[in-house]
Structures are given as structure tokens and as C-alpha cells.
């Protein structure tokens, strides 16, 4: 088996819903503009050109959007929920390299000129998206309007997040990283309660389940979260901000400002 086969096997084993069939979505004409922040930031005429190419497509938690080295057919503007970008190693070990929520789009590799990526993406919550074919997105991107400008800014912002995560994974404690991660997810699902198994957390943070368990317990005992059978409730956001590393604020600042001016 090649490393990629290994990685694919690993991911398949996580996501029983991988091959779930979907009814073909209808175009988004006559519907309100989706909540995605790139889409809402487009001038009306540019959005109208794009509208007929978008389809509303929703995913349950744990669905894989991209497999490593597989041709990228679609990009997804996230309207609600969180998509995780994972970097995998040959032995199947993973860590989350970044998250994408309603501020962004999954599948940016296609506008950069790549047809696939070695990373994997999967949904970390129920996710609502506006889907566009890779071909259409590249064509719109090449027109050079506001869409291109916003997408390039998003690439830069995502780059900042991933770079920060590289440092964070090396230098910060598990407690800090877990707190940061919970805050980042909460910002995107916009709900103080979400579902996460320990196994999932251990893959995201790149540590053993026992480690996740200890760290989550600490946060629970100090009253910052409640955590029961995969359901996390954030009880004290400010307290979590006190525990997490500075990476949270650094990345948040980039995200808060990237669509402005």
C-alpha cells in the first residue's frame, strides 16, 4: 500500500458516511444570498453572475469533502458550521492544520492552479454550503473581479492560521491548544454547544485519547466547559480565553479584518 492508500484507509475508517448519496441540488436562484462572508461581500452584480453556478449542499458531521490526492471537483463556500483541514502522515497520524467556517471557502487549491491536494478536509459539525464546480470557480476567479481579490485575501488569512498552528503545535501545551481549538470552533458554529468525540479531538490535536481526556477534564473541573459523551458545552468563554495560547487572538485578528476595506 502506498502512503496515500494508507491515509485514505484511515480516513475512510473514520467516516461511515463517506459514500452517502445525495439528491441533486437545485440552483440558488430566487433564494436569499447565502451567509458566507465572501459571498455577502461581493457587489450585487458580481454575485448575480455567480448565483446560477451555486448549489446549496449540506453535510452531516464527519463527512469527507476531500480525499488526499483526489481530483477536486467542487469548492464549498461555507454558510454555517466548520470544515477541518487535516495534514496526515504516512502512518495515518494526523493533526488539524486549520479550520474553515462561514468566513471562507474549502477547495482553494483549485484557484491556485492545483487539481488536488495531499490534505484532507472533513466536516466537524453539520455544515451548510454553497457548492460551485471547480471549473466555474476558476473561470470566475480569472475574471479578476472582487471575487478574486477576496479569495486571495482568504488564502493569505488561511496561510496565517496554518503557520500559527505549526508554531502552536510545537510550542504550546495541550490545555492551551484544546482551549484555543474550542474557541475557534465556537466562533464558527456560533453555538455554545457542539458534538465532539474524544477520538475526533485526539485526531485534531494530534495527541492520544488519554491526553485529550485529561485536558478536557481539567477544563471541566475548572468550570470552563461541560463535557459529556461527546457533547461539549462552553460555560465560560472568557475563562477559556484566559487558558488558551496567544495564537487564538493572533489568528482571530486576521480573520476579523480580512474582509474589511
Amino acid at each position, binding site marked *: 500500500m502506498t502512503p496515500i492508500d494508507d491515509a485514505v484507509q484511515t480516513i475512510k475508517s473514520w467516516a461511515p458516511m463517506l459514500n452517502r448519496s445525495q439528491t441533486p441540488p437545485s440552483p440558488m436562484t430566487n433564494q436569499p444570498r447565502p451567509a458566507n462572508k465572501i459571498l455577502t461581500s461581493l457587489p450585487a452584480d458580481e454575485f448575480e453572475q455567480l448565483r446560477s453556478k451555486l448549489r446549496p449542499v449540506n453535510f452531516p458531521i464527519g463527512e469527507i469533502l476531500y480525499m488526499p490526492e483526489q481530483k477536486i471537483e467542487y469548492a464549498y463556500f461555507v454558510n454555517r458550521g466548520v470544515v477541518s483541514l487535516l495534514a496526515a502522515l504516512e502512518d495515518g497520524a494526523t493533526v488539524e492544520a486549520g479550520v474553515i467556517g462561514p468566513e471562507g471557502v474549502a477547495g482553494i487549491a483549485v484557484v491556485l492552479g492545483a487539481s488536488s*491536494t495531499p490534505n484532507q478536509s472533513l466536516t466537524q459539525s453539520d455544515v451548510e454550503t454553497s457548492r460551485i464546480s471547480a471549473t466555474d470557480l476558476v473561470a470566475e476567479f480569472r475574471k479578476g473581479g472582487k471575487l478574486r481579490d477576496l479569495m486571495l485575501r482568504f488564502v493569505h488569512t488561511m496561510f496565517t492560521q496554518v503557520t500559527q498552528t505549526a508554531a502552536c503545535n510545537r510550542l504550546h501545551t495541550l490545555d492551551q491548544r484544546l482551549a484555543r481549538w474550542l474557541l475557534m470552533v465556537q466562533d464558527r458554529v456560533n453555538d455554545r454547544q457542539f458534538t465532539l468525540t474524544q477520538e475526533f479531538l485526539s485526531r485534531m490535536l494530534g495527541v492520544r485519547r488519554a491526553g485529550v481526556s485529561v485536558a478536557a477534564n481539567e477544563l471541566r473541573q475548572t468550570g470552563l466547559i461541560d463535557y459529556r459523551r461527546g457533547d461539549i458545552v462552553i460555560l465560560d468563554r472568557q475563562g477559556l480565553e484566559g487558558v488558551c495560547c496567544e495564537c487564538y487572538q493572533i489568528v482571530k485578528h486576521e480573520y476579523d479584518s480580512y474582509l474589511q476595506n
Partner: protein
Amino acid sequence: MKSRSAKEHFARAGSFHDEILLFTHDLFLQVSQTTSCNRHHEVQERLARWLLMMRDRVASNTLQLTQEFLSWMLGVRNQAVSRAAKRLQGDGSIRYSRGTLEIINHQRLELTACVCYRMMKARMNNQFS
């Protein structure tokens, strides 16, 4: 190249534009691979990878590097760099004294480096072929 001039060339959306975007993609993958590498691999493996990546780029086996610099690059203390470098010296991969590091057996260094080196290199080669 001045950033303004780079922007103007980029805006013409010709081959410069396409190359820059592909490079961005490649760099993005390098960084995302590093998130995983930093989490899962030992200092010695990471040091070997880092030295090989430098060697590929400067096209030389001799690198001027202080331990302090290496400790910043790898995000570990001086002592950890020192231990890792000693091991690489011990198995004959490198020679290192007073800020000059010489790669004397890069095949051996490749055996020590984590898989990330090979993954990143393969990608880089794909991109420009």
C-alpha cells in the same frame, strides 16, 4: 523586485500570476505538513529534514548556522539542538563546529529525516515539472 511592481505583473494575469499562485499552493502545503511534523516527529528527525531542505535550496553541503538559530527554527531549546546535532555527527551524517555545519553524508541524513522531507520534495518536483 519591489512589491508594487510584483503586484502590477501579477495583475496582468499571465504566466507570472499562475506561477505565483502555484508557489503559494506549494508553500501552503509545506506549512500544513509542518503542523503535523512539529506535532509528531522528534527533534533529530526534524533537524535532518531541515538541513536537507536547506541543502536543496542553497545547493551546498556547507551551511553557516548557529545553534541558537537552529533552536529558533525548530522551536526547541539549545540543548535539544545540541543533542540532536551530536547524534547526527556521531553517525557520520554531518560535521558541526563553531557555526559551520557540513553535510558529509546526505543519504544517511535522508534516512534519519522524517517522511515529511520526501513528501515535501516530491511535491516541489511535481510542481515544476
